[in-house]
C-alpha cells in the first residue's frame, strides 16, 4: 500500500517539463495537437508535442487546460494525442498488462506493442448501444478497480528480461462522431500490471509497481494529480497574461492620472457618538444624522409616506411616471419633480387633496382620463390615503429612519460565522471557532478578514453572484433553452486569479477561447434565441452600467430612455458585426394600436433593418472614434475610468452582496433609482479605480467597517437603507447546501453532472460539468425528455434543495436578486428530502458517527454538534434539553464489536446517452433513485435506539431557522 508521504511527493514532481527526455523518476506526458488531421486514425510518423508535463505513474484522467488569448480556456483539436513515456524498473518476470482508455490507445514496452484499445464506433447517437450491466467488464479480483464505464479495457502479456524497460503509451483524446468532433476529454487512461502468481494489480510507474489499482488509492492519486494539474493551469494562465502586462500597466497609469485630475470626495469628519472603523463609517454616520433631521420634520402628519404612500405610487404610478419619458411629463419618482407637475399642471397642491389633479384623475370615470390607465381602479381606501397625505402637506421624505440608533457590534461567534459564510461560503470549523474565540488580540477581526480574503474558496462564494448576473446557463444535453456555454470555469479562474474587474469584463466582452469547454466565448452563445446578441447586450448594460434594456429587445422602453436601436447597437458591438432586427424581436403595429388609448410602448426600429456597431451610451461617456474591433472598443469604453458609471455600478453590487441592499436600488436600473449615500458611492468607486479595479480592497473596506459588523436586529423585515443594523438575511441557496454538507462532513457521493459519460456525442450536444464539489457547480439536470434513464438521482436530491431555496438550475435570464421569501417547500425539503436523509442518517462513513462514538458526554456531543452546524455554543436550556435527550443509554451506545462494513466489489451499472434507450437503463436508474431515497444504511456501531435519538438532534439543528439566516 502506498504511504501518504509517497503521495505527497507527487506534487513536487508534477511540473512542466521543458525538455523531451524524462529524468527516469517520472513519466513524461506530452500533448500532441497537430498531425492527426481531425481523423480517428493513427498517424504514420511520430507527432510533435505542443506541451508536456510529468506524472508519477503511467496513469492520467485529466489533461492540463488549453489556454489562449489573455489566459482563457480554449479548445484543443479533436482528436488530440496524449503520449506517456518513460522507463520502468519492473523486476524481471512475466506480467499481465491492463490498458484502459476511452478511445484508441497503444502500449509499447521496449518498443513491442503489448496491448491496444480500439476506436469507438460511429453513430453513438443511437441510445441502444452497450449494456448497462457491463457484462463485458473485467473482474480481476477483490480490491480491483472496475472501469468507470465508457472506458475500453484490454489485457496483454509481457515478459521482462532485464529491467529497466522503456514504456510508451499513446492515447487518442476526443475524436470524431462522423464529421463532428467529440469532447477532448481524457477518460481514465491507465496501465496496470499483475505479476505472475500474484493477485494484486498495480499501476505501472517508473519505480516498477506503483500504487495498488484500487478505488481508494485511485481516489488519492486523482486528488493529488488534479490539484497539481490545476496548479500548472494557473502557471499557464499567468504566462499568457504576462504578454499584455505592459498595456495593462499603461491603463493603470492612465487611471491614476485621471484620479489626480478629478476631484476627490472628501471623507466627512466623524459625527459625534458614532462608531467608526474606517471612512465607510464616516459616510454612514453623516447620512444617518441628515435623515434623522428630515424625519423629525415629517413626524407631524398621520400618513407615513415611506410605508404607505411610496409603495402605492411605486406599484401603480411610477412605472409610467418616471424618468425622461414620463407620461404626460409628470414624474412621480422624486419629490421635487412631483411637486413641479406635468402637462396637466401641478399634480399635487399641498394641503388640498380634493383639488389636486392626482385625485381628480384617479377618481375620474372617463376612460381616456382615469389613472392608472390599465388594471384595476385604485380602491376607495387607497384614494383616501393619497388625499389625506396631500391634505397634510404631501410630505415626501427621501428615506425613513427605521432604527433611531445603531445596534452594538456583533459578538465574536456571530461575526465569525457571518464573515466566513459571506467570504468563502462555508462556516468556520470547530477549531477555527475555538482559536478565534480564545484570541484576546484586538486586531483579530482584521486578521481573520485578511485570511479569508486570501482563501482560494473566496472564488466559490462569488460564483452564484456572477452566474446570476451574467445568466450562465449551460445545458448538459442538446442546448436549446437559451443556453450559454459553461463559462463558469472561466469565471472561477478569473476570480481565483484576482483578475481586476476591468480586465475580467474585458475578457468577457472579447469572448475569446472555448464556447463549450468553459471559455468566456461561452457567454456569447444563446441557443435558439432569435436575437442572441440583443439578449447579451441587455445583460451587459444592466450588469455593468445599471442600464436596464430588457424592454428594448422588442420595443423602446415605455418609461426608461432605452431605445431598441441602442440595444441593437450594443448587441452589434458585442457581436463584432452588424445585426439585423428579426421580426420576432418586435411588436406587431396592429397589436400596438389594438386598444383605443395611445399605446404605452413605441416601436421605432423596423424589423429587418440592419444596425451597425455603435456606442449607445453617449450620456455616460463621449466615446472617441471606434477601431475595427468593436468588442475591444466596447470593453475599453465600458471600463474606462472616465466612464464613472462602471466603477459605481460595480462597487454598488459588491456593497449589496455584503450589506443586503445596494446604495442604488434597483441595481440593474439606475434611471429608476437614486443613491441613498451618493458621496459614499462615489468615494468607493474612486477607491476601486485607485486600487487597480481589484475587488478585495473594496470588500476589505466593507468587512472591516463597523456598519458590517453590527449585530442583527431580528425585527427588521428588509435591509435598513441607513445601515443602523443588519436584518436577518436569508443565506443564498448554495451557501445553505454547502454549509450543511461541510458542517456534517457527509460525503454526498454525487454522480458526474453529465449524460454522456463515455464522450461519444458530438461536442455541441453534450457537456460534462463533472462531479460538483460545491453547490454552484450544479446546473439544470436537463431531463425535458422525461426519461427515467436520463435522471441523475443524487444530483436531483441536491437540486431539489437548491431550487426550493431560490437557486435556478436554468438561468434563461439574468438576476441581481433572488426570490427568498419563505414558502412551505423550503422547510419541507429540509425536513424530509433525500439530501437531509443523507446528512441525518448516521452511516458508517458519516463523520458525525465518529463524533458520536468518541463523545465523552451527551453535553459535549451537543456542544460539538452546535459548533459544527450553527457555529455557536448552546445556551444552558438547550444544553439541558438536547443533552437530556441523548442521556439515556449514552454509556452503552457504542457497539465496539460490530461487524465492519463489507466493501462493495461489484460493477456499477453504467447509464449514458449511448445506452439509455435499453430497458435496463431505466431499471438501473430507478434502482439508483430508490437507493438514493433510502440513504446509506445506518452504522451498527451505535445502538439503534440511541442512534435514532442522536439523528433527531442532528435533524433539529439542520432544520433550525439559524441554518438559513445569516447571523
Amino acid at each position, binding site marked *: 500500500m502506498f504511504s501518504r508521504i509517497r503521495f505527497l511527493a507527487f506534487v513536487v514532481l508534477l511540473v512542466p517539463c521543458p525538455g523531451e527526455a524524462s529524468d527516469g523518476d517520472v513519466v513524461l506526458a506530452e500533448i500532441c495537437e497537430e498531425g492527426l488531421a481531425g481523423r480517428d486514425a493513427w498517424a504514420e510518423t511520430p507527432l510533435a508535442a505542443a506541451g508536456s508535463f510529468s506524472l508519477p505513474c503511467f496513469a492520467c484522467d485529466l489533461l492540463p487546460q488549453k489556454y489562449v488569448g489573455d489566459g482563457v480556456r480554449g479548445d484543443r483539436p479533436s482528436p488530440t494525442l496524449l503520449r506517456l513515456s518513460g522507463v520502468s524498473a519492473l523486476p524481471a518476470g512475466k506480467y499481465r498488462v491492463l490498458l484502459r482508455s476511452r478511445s484508441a490507445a497503444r502500449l509499447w514496452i521496449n518498443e513491442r506493442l503489448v496491448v491496444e484499445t480500439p476506436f469507438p464506433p460511429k453513430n453513438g447517437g443511437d*441510445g*441502444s448501444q452497450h449494456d448497462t450491466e457491463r457484462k463485458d467488464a473485467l473482474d480481476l479480483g477483490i480490491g480491483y478497480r472496475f472501469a468507470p464505464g465508457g472506458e475500453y479495457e484490454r489485457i496483454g502479456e509481457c515478459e521482462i528480461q532485464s529491467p529497466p524497460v522503456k514504456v510508451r503509451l499513446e492515447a487518442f483524446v476526443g475524436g470524431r462522431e462522423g464529421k463532428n468532433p467529440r469532447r477532448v476529454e481524457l477518460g481514465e487512461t491507465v496501465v496496470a500490471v499483475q505479476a505472475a502468481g500474484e493477485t494484486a494489480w498495480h499501476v505501472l510507474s517508473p519505480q516498477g509497481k506503483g500504487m495498488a489499482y484500487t478505488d481508494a488509492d485511485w481516489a488519492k492519486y486523482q486528488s493529488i494529480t488534479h490539484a497539481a494539474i490545476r496548479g500548472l493551469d494557473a502557471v499557464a494562465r499567468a504566462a499568457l497574461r504576462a504578454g499584455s502586462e505592459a498595456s495593462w500597466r499603461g491603463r493603470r497609469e492612465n487611471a491614476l492620472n485621471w484620479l489626480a485630475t478629478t476631484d476627490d470626495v472628501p471623507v466627512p469628519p466623524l459625527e459625534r457618538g458614532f462608531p467608526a472603523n474606517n471612512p465607510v463609517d464616516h459616510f454612514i454616520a453623516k447620512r444617518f444624522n441628515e435623515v434623522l433631521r428630515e424625519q423629525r420634520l415629517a413626524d407631524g402628519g398621520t400618513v407615513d409616506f415611506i410605508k404607505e404612500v411610496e409603495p402605492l405610487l411605486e406599484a401603480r404610478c411610477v*412605472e409610467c411616471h418616471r424618468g425622461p419619458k414620463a407620461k404626460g411629463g409628470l414624474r412621480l419618482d422624486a419629490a421635487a419633480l412631483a411637486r413641479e407637475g406635468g402637462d396637466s399642471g401641478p399634480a399635487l397642491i399641498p394641503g388640498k387633496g380634493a383639488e389636486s389633479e392626482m385625485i381628480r384623475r384617479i377618481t375620474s370615470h372617463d376612460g381616456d382620463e382615469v389613472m392608472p390607465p390599465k*388594471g384595476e381602479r385604485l380602491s376607495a381606501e387607497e384614494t383616501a390615503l393619497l388625499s389625506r397625505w396631500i391634505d397634510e402637506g404631501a410630505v415626501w421624505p427621501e428615506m425613513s429612519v427605521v432604527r433611531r440608533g445603531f445596534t452594538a457590534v456583533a459578538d465574536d461567534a456571530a461575526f465569525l460565522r457571518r464573515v466566513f459564510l459571506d467570504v468563502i461560503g462555508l462556516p468556520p470549523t470547530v477549531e477555527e471557532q475555538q482559536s478565534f474565540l480564545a484570541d484576546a488580540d484586538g486586531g483579530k477581526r482584521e486578521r481573520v478578514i485578511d485570511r479569508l480574503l486570501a482563501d482560494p474558496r473566496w472564488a466559490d462564494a462569488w460564483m452564484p453572484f456572477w452566474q446570476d448576473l451574467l445568466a450562465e446557463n449551460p445545458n448538459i*444535453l442538446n442546448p436549446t*433553452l437559451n443556453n450559454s456555454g459553461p463559462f463558469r470555469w472561466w469565471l472561477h479562474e478569473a476570480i481565483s486569479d484576482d483578475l481586476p474587474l476591468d480586465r475580467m469584463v474585458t475578457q468577457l466582452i472579447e469572448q475569446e477561447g472555448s464556447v463549450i469547454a468553459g471559455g468566456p466565448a461561452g457567454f456569447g452563445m444563446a441557443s*435558439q*434565441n*432569435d*436575437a442572441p446578441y440583443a439578449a447579451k447586450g441587455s445583460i451587459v448594460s444592466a450588469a455593468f452600467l445599471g442600464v436596464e434594456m430588457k424592454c428594448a*429587445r422588442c420595443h423602446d422602453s415605455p*418609461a426608461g430612455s432605452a431605445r431598441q436601436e441602442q440595444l441593437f447597437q450594443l448587441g452589434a458591438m458585442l457581436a463584432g458585426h452588424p445585426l439585423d432586427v428579426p421580426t*420576432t424581436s418586435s411588436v406587431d403595429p*396592429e*397589436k400596438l394600436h389594438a386598444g383605443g388609448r395611445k399605446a404605452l410602448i413605441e416601436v421605432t426600429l423596423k424589423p429587418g433593418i440592419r444596425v451597425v456597431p455603435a456606442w449607445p451610451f453617449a450620456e455616460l461617456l463621449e466615446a472617441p472614434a471606434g477601431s475595427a474591433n468593436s468588442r475591444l472598443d466596447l470593453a475599453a469604453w465600458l471600463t474606462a475610468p472616465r466612464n464613472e458609471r462602471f466603477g459605481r455600478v460595480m462597487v454598488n453590487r459588491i456593497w449589496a452582496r455584503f450589506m443586503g441592499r445596494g446604495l442604488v436600488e434597483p441595481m440593474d436600473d439606475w434611471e429608476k433609482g437614486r443613491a441613498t449615500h451618493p458621496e459614499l458611492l462615489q468615494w468607493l468607486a474612486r477607491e476601486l479605480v485607485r486600487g487597480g479595479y481589484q475587488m478585495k480592497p473594496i470588500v476589505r473596506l466593507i468587512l472591516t467597517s463597523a456598519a458590517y459588523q453590527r449585530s442583527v436586529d431580528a*425585527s427588521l*423585515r428588509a435591509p435598513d437603507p441607513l445601515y443602523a443594523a443588519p*436584518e*436577518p438575511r436569508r443565506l443564498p441557496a448554495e451557501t445553505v447546501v454547502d454549509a450543511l454538507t461541510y458542517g456534517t462532513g457527509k460525503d454526498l457521493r454525487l454522480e458526474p453532472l453529465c449524460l454522456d459519460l463515455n464522450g461519444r456525442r458530438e461536442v455541441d450536444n453534450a457537456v460534462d460539468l463533472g462531479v460538483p464539489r460545491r453547490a454552484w457547480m450544479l446546473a*439544470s*439536470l*436537463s*431531463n*425535458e*425528455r*422525461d*426519461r*427515467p*434513464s436520463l*435522471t441523475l438521482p443524487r444530483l436531483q436530491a441536491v437540486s*431539489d434543495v437548491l431550487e426550493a431555496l431560490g437557486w435556478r438550475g*436554468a438561468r*434563461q*435570464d439574468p438576476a441581481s436578486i433572488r*426570490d427568498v421569501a*419563505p*414558502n*412551505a*417547500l*423550503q*422547510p*419541507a425539503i429540509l*425536513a*424530509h428530502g433525500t439530501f437531509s436523509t443523507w446528512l441525518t442518517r448516521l452511516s458508517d462513513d458519516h463523520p458525525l458517527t465518529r463524533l458520536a462514538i468518541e463523545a465523552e458526554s451527551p453535553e459535549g456531543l451537543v456542544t460539538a454538534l452546535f459548533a459544527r452546524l450553527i457555529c455557536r455554543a448552546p445556551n444552558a436550556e*438547550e444544553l439541558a*434539553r438536547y443533552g437530556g435527550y441523548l442521556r439515556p443509554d449514552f454509556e452503552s451506545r457504542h457497539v465496539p464489536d460490530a461487524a465492519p462494513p463489507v466493501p462493495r466489489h461489484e460493477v456499477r451499472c453504467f447509464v449514458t446517452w449511448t445506452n439509455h*434507450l435499453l*430497458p435496463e437503463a*431505466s*431499471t438501473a436508474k430507478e434502482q439508483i*433513485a430508490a437507493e438514493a*431515497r433510502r*440513504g446509506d444504511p445506518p452504522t451498527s456501531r451505535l445502538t439503534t435506539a440511541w442512534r435514532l*435519538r442522536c439523528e433527531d438532534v442532528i435533524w433539529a439543528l439542520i*432544520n*433550525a*431557522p*439559524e441554518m*438559513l*439566516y445569516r447571523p
Partner: protein
Amino acid sequence: MAARSAHAAPVSAIVPKGKAEHCIFLWLGGGMAQVDTFDPKAPGDASAKPSRPGSYYKAIETSVPGVRVTEHLSQTARLMEHVTAVRTVNHRVVDEHAFATNLVHTGRMISGSTVYPSIGSIVAHQRSAANDRVPPYMLIGYPNVSRGPGFLGAQSGFIYLTDTSTGPAGFTRPADVDDRRAAERLALVEPLQQRFPAGSVPADYREAQAEALRLAGPEFMGHFDLKSEPGSVRQRYGGEFGQRCLLARRLVQAGVRFVEVSHNLNFVNGTGWDTHNAGQRQQHLLIRELDTAFSALIEDLRGQRLLEKTLIVIATEFGRPAAFDSGGGRGHQGSAFTLVLAGGGLRHCGAYGVTDALSKTCEENPVSIPDFHATIHTALGIDPHAELLDGARPVPITDGGRPIGALLDAG
C-alpha cells in the same frame, strides 16, 4: 396579422367563460404520433421497400359517427362523445424535444429576457387551489424549467413526485421516521424556532415549517394512498401511468387545481413516445396503456360527477410524420399534430380540425399553441387575454391565443 391566418384559429365572437374547476394535463413526452393514435390515415407499410407512409395500425369507428381512431384506442373510442381530438395543432419547433416541450408548456418561444411560466403555474396563479389545505399545482413526473413558474415566482410552482410509490418530494417522511419520532423531532426543533421574535422574517419561516409539517401529515398525505381505492378501480386504471391518473383524480377531489401527469415510461418500448427506429415496433403497448388510463379516468370522473368540472388534456411536444425513417420508426413533425381535450364542460365533438391525407398539413381549422392554451384557460374560467406582471411588464396570459369557439359555444 397576416402571418397568423394560416396557422391559427379563425376569429370568433366573444367566447363565454367555461365552468371547469380543475385540469389534468397528461404529458406524452417524446411526441405522440397522431397518425397512429387520434388522426388515423390509410395504412402505411414500414417494411416495404421503399416504405409506404401511413398509419401503423387499423382505424376503428368511435361513439361519434365519422370520427375514427386507431385500433389500440378501443376503450377511448367508446367514449369519444366526451373527447375532442384537436387534430390541427401546429408549430415550427421540431428539432429538439426540450425546446418544443418548453413551447407547449409555456405557449411561447424562449426569449432570454423573460422566463415564461408553464400553463400549470398560470392556472395555479390565477385560480389558486380549490382548497387551501392543498397546493394548487402538482406534478407527477420529473421537475424541469418548462414546468416551472418562471416570472410568477415560487408561489406558483409545482410540488412533484416521480412516481406513485414515492410520494411528493419533501412531504414524504423517510421510512424510519414514524409518527412518534416525527413528534419528537418537532419538539426538538421548537426551541430553535422560538429564538426569533414574532413578526420577523424567520418567524414567517417558522410558519412555513408548520405548513410543511402539516402537509407531511396524514390529511394531505392520505390523498396519495392509492390502496384506499377499491381494487376494481385500481385495476381499471392499469399500470403505473394509470395509477398516476387515479392519483390525479384523487388530487383533484382534494382541491388541487392543476395536475400534470407524465407518461414517461420509456422501458415499455425503449424510446417512449419518441418512436424513432425500433421504438415504433412496441408503440402499441404505450398506446394501449394510454387508452386504458385515459378511458378509466373519463369513466371514473363521470362516475364521481367530476367530468364536467375537470378538463383532461393530452399534450405532447409535437407529432410525427406518416412517413417512416430508415429504421422503420418516425421522425418529428410540427406542421400538424393532435392534442386532445376531454371533459371540462366543453361541447365535445370527437375531433376538431382536418388534416390532409397524410396528416402533414392542416386543411381546416388550424389551431396554434396559443389558441390551444387559450381554449384550456377559457374552459377553466380564465381570460386568456388578461395580463400577468413580470416586474412592471404586462404579459398577456397567452400570446394572442383565441379559444376554439366551437367547443365553448355551449348551446
